[in-house]
């Protein structure tokens, strides 16, 4: 076998190894997403001690992350947002305790008084650079990547 042929085989072998690695990584990612999805689905978004977990969404906007948090009926003056390492820790009281007669999973009347939530980001957050805005019960948090 000539040296050129040998190099060609090695190159081909490396290509195959890379594509197999990519396939394995993709599959691991898919399984992780599925497991995370199931985990979040079977965790209720409320607890019987009156606490609601807020819905949120995280967007990668190039040079910053934008987090939107849905806090309907929250008292905007009570919204507390803290940043610890890569976490956003949120707490807010409702304007008034909200009672529901037809809430599923409690068998009777239930009520809620506050939101509590922790959101993890892929980066460490510098609280000095973060911008927070609130509008119609939705909180927008802009976090620069650097």
């Amino acid at each position, binding site marked *: 076998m000539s040296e050129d042929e040998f190099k060609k085989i090695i190159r081909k072998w490396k290509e195959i190894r890379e594509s197999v690695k990519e396939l394995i990584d993709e599959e691991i990612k898919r399984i992780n997403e599925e497991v995370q999805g199931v985990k979040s689905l079977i965790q209720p*978004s409320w607890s019987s001690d009156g606490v609601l977990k807020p*819905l949120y*969404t995280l*967007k990668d906007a190039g040079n910053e992350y934008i987090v*939107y948090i*849905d806090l*309907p009926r929250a008292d905007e003056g009570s919204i507390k947002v803290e940043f610890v390492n890569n976490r956003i820790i949120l707490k807010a009281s409702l304007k008034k305790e*909200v009672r529901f007669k037809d809430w599923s999973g409690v068998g009777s009347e239930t009520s809620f008084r506050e939101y509590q939530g922790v959101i993890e980001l892929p980066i460490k957050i510098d609280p000095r650079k973060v911008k927070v805005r609130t*509008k119609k019960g*939705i909180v927008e948090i802009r976090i620069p990547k650097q």
Partner: protein
Amino acid sequence: MSYREEFYGDFKIVEYEPYKVKEPSFGIVALPDTGLVGVIGAGHMVKSLNLKEVGGIDSYSYLPPIAVISKKSIRLPIRIFANENIVSVYSEFMPSAPSLPILAKAILDYLERRGVNTLVMSSGLAVQNRFELEKLRTFYITNSSEIEKILEGVGALPFENGYLVGPYAVMIKEAFRYRMNVVLLLTEAFLEFPDPEASARNLEILSRLIGKEIDVKELIEQAEIIRIKARDAMKATMPNLSKMRKDYELSTPLNI
């Protein structure tokens, strides 16, 4: 509980009692999608127009094993409400993506045989700047010039180019195949948060189309409570929309 049953593949349509609709009649289909706009709006319409629950749709293959308990009665996960000229198919649960064409066909066959002339659907158009928007725009897709005239009169805009992904994409394609008059209203909305404001805007237009007054004042006043109640349905909808590649709606057709 059942008066009559029909089977479409693995879907079963059950009627709880006999009912008739007069012409012209409207089919209003509400399935979970962007901001649960259609589902929230249809729920309000059912209450406002006092539609009666006349049947339901179930599947042990394509839907989670759910029984809906409503006013002490056992109901199916996809619910059918009706009055003299409206039949509304309403679901807070998303069937699996591969079952959507079968479900669409089942719903359209059923509505057609029930004498429905026009299919009206309402959803949200996921826009990235929803947080900033005060005035929401409504777009429409229709195959009826008559409906188009009404929509132009109320300031709705034609959805001219782009992609539609999710249950309404399947419903509208199948409705076109059935040559049924069809309109889909799309109001700018949050993708991941329940958006009753967008539902209210769609309902104002829908009420013109069906010729019935639907007061959205209560829906707007109750918007925050609806947003609290709809959180779990929204949370359950998102992984399904993600699997259906909802992100294609944000890409642009290349050539035409």
